[in-house]
């Protein structure tokens, strides 16, 4: 409506203090809103899945799909005064593909070559449709070569030595408290996905980490201007209320779902998995917990993804009668004193391991609700084990966990496919199982093809197999992000690629 104005500052209450400020090493979706202010990528992904220039003003792909050539924009400088050139980009790409330094190494990456000052050539081991996703992902954000060579060890802890090319630079960082970003005056290379060009409207933004949801909600609007991560109960405080803006966005990528370990008894019997899937009323639970602010999920893949299979909606779930029949068929006919089904003296029981650190938005409560319903409806014991992440990793590695609730929030085709095709595996030990080979082949085909329609078809097939036929995944929630702000703050939005809150480049404050 109104004309954007430059100047001013805001305080932004956020959930997460990043564990690691190095974009090559950070995998917290909730941290991307800071990183996107500080770093740019070579390309940027648009809403409809295309890639548009950012630091690279153009790119080309060789016919065999193994060589990508990037032409860099001229006149780009880093916050520390370094110039963006081909050598800097090569250094970043090499670093981003070096393990264990980087967690975003691309399996088919072969090498990068400096062709001239502004041209870089990347060679892949074999064609891979998901490469550009990585290029556009913040995980491959371009860091100043000086930072990478001289201050590599300081980068995780943030601070002034962490220099990118983004519209904001780090002014100060207090671990556990806040990070203050200030506008980078030279910034003049916004991609076309942005609403404006030139330097950011805001002079300064203070991100204050407020892990307590009630603190964020309580602090708006008197003490902060914007918050993210709003629980369903609190939404009514802002939504359609005078003086506030409320935005919500479904996440791209995967949904929040149960991954079933189909290799571990009793889940190795597909009837048991089906019964589990159909033995509870997800709609009722989601409604009571989230009051319509968060949607239930139907597929492994997010409904906003171009690969989403809409036909799965209404195709499964809440069929207690059938679930009981399936369990009877599978031989779980006896009951023990607590009312659980028993076969050969063993109780029908599955263990669900969920790290406390990931528990947000009442997810563990949802799991408890499911557990209760499964007990009441089909006599299945669904043990929800909340554990600190340090022990979690060990337990996962042991392979003795049946169910593993998770969300992988990448829009990265390859990773999505990986998840869809590994049979719901949690642990390394079943990766080589021959039974999932056909899935893997399908996934590989989807990656290799350049035909998007074909890819979508394969995706749909995989989703249906995972949810309906094999029941390796039971989708639960469509992950969503929320932002609330006082209504003088304009220009807030979400990152196209994954749907989490965007940086504040386009944000301005009405005078």
């Amino acid at each position, binding site marked *: 409506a109104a004309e954007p104005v430059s100047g001013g500052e805001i305080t932004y209450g956020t959930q997460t203090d990043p*564990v*690691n400020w190095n974009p090559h090493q950070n995998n917290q979706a909730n941290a991307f809103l800071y990183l996107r202010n500080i770093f740019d990528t070579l390309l940027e992904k648009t809403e409809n899945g295309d890639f548009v220039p950012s630091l690279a003003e153009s790119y080309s792909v060789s016919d065999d799909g193994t060589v990508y050539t990037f032409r860099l924009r001229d006149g780009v400088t880093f916050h520390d005064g370094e110039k963006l050139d081909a050598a800097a980009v090569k250094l970043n790409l090499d670093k981003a593909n070096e393990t264990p330094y980087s*967690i975003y190494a691309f399996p088919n990456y072969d090498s990068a070559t400096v062709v001239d000052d502004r041209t870089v050539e990347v060679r892949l081991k074999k064609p891979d449709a998901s490469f550009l996703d990585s290029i556009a992902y913040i995980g491959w954000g371009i860091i100043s070569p000086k930072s990478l060579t001289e201050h590599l*060890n300081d980068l995780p*802890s943030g601070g002034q030595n962490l220099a990118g090319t983004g519209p904001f630079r780090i002014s100060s960082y207090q671990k*556990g*408290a806040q990070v203050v970003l200030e506008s980078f005056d030279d910034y003049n290379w916004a991609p076309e996905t942005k609403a404006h060009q030139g330097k950011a409207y805001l002079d300064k933004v203070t991100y204050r980490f407020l892990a307590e949801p009630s603190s964020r909600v309580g602090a708006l609007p008197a003490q902060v201007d914007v918050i993210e991560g709003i629980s369903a109960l609190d939404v009514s405080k802002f939504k359609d209320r005078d003086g506030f803006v409320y935005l919500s966005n479904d996440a791209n990528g995967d949904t929040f779902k149960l991954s079933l370990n189909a290799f571990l008894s009793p889940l190795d019997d597909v009837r048991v998995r089906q019964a589990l899937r159909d033995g509870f009323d997800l709609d009722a639970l989601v409604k009571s917990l989230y009051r319509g602010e968060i949607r239930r999920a139907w597929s492994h893949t997010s409904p906003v993804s171009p690969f989403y299979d809409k036909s799965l909606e209404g195709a499964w779930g809440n069929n207690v009668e059938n679930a009981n029949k399936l369990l009877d068929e599978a031989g779980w006919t006896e009951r023990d004193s607590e009312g659980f089904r028993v076969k050969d003296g063993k109780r029908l029981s599955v263990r669900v391991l969920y790290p406390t650190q990931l528990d947000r938005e009442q997810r563990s409560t949802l799991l408890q609700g499911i557990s209760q319903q499964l007990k009441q409806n089909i006599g299945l014991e669904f043990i929800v084990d909340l554990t600190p992440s340090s*022990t979690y990793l060990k337990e996962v*590695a042991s392979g003795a966990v049946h169910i593993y609730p998770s969300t*992988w929030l990448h829009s990265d085709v390859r990773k999505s496919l990986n998840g869809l095709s590994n049979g719901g595996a949690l642990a390394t030990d079943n990766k080589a199982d021959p039974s999932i080979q056909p899935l893997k082949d399908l996934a590989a085909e989807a990656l290799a093809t350049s035909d998007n329609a074909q890819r979508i078809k394969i995706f749909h097939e995989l989703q249906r197999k995972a949810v309906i036929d094999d029941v390796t995944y039971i989708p639960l929630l469509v992950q969503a992000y929320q932002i609330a702000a006082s209504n003088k703050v304009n220009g807030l939005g979400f990152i196209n690629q994954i749907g989490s809150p965007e940086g504040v480049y386009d944000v301005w404050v009405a005078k």
Partner: protein
Amino acid sequence: MPLQSILVSLSRRVALGVVVLWFTVTLTFAFLQIVPGDPAALLFGGDEIPTEEQLEEVRRDWGLERPVHEQYLLYIERLVHGDLGRSYQQRTEVATLLYSGVWSTVILAVAGLVLAVVISVPLATLTAGSSTLLRRFAFVFELVTISMPSFWIGIILILVFSFTLNWFPIVALDNPLSLVLPAATIALGLVGQLSQVMRESIERALKEPFILTARSRGLSDGSVRWGHALKHSYIPAATITGTFAGNVLTGVVVTETVFGRPGLGTITVAAITTHDIPLVLGVVIVSAAFFVLVNILVDLSYGLVDKRIGSSV
């Protein structure tokens, strides 16, 4: 002569403190070795399960493949040189991380302690040995603060004084007012105990003959309480405050979490839950050193207040 004996006892205490520190570090080190979980897996981070080769690489990188006793010796050797190692999770110098948190925590703790003393001293002194309405109020107030979980106190303070009344911001850290509520949370955790202990010793002192003597000189009730009796509550009060200060991390962990403040408390929780061994050890060292230091200071202060102690030890 007295100075010399103070120095002797001081150096003995410091030596003892160093032993305690070393022992603490060793014990924690041993403890953490048995904690399940592969640090290499943590180091790898990321959302995919690393392969065995990748883990090997990480282990080599961090010296984790060596026998435990070698790791221990190496750690101690580095420690002696002031090197606390690097955090697994944040891959940063532990010393830097701790330094970034320590000031905020110290300010919070000191503010909390000062507030506790400022509340407790008059509360105890004015109500000792009397049965006024104020005494009854103090009784209820102390019991209530003693029996509430401190995170709960913190949440209520925030709700009432920050979000509803808007008196004390908690978000703007540069604003000194933002310290008030967290400090009050810490203080309220201590006030009950502190004023009860102080009152007890003031009451005991008030029954002593020297109080009668002081009264017989024409001193008013107030002068007797503030001028004579109060000082006698110093030692038990300092002991409690010392224990509390030495163990301040406990109070600070909760307060910092509730108020979203930076500091050692936040670092501690993160370090433990992510199994960041070097960082945990760093926290242990800092807080044990703090404990030892506070206790030395408290002990020395006994002698300053009560000269009998200085001369007999």
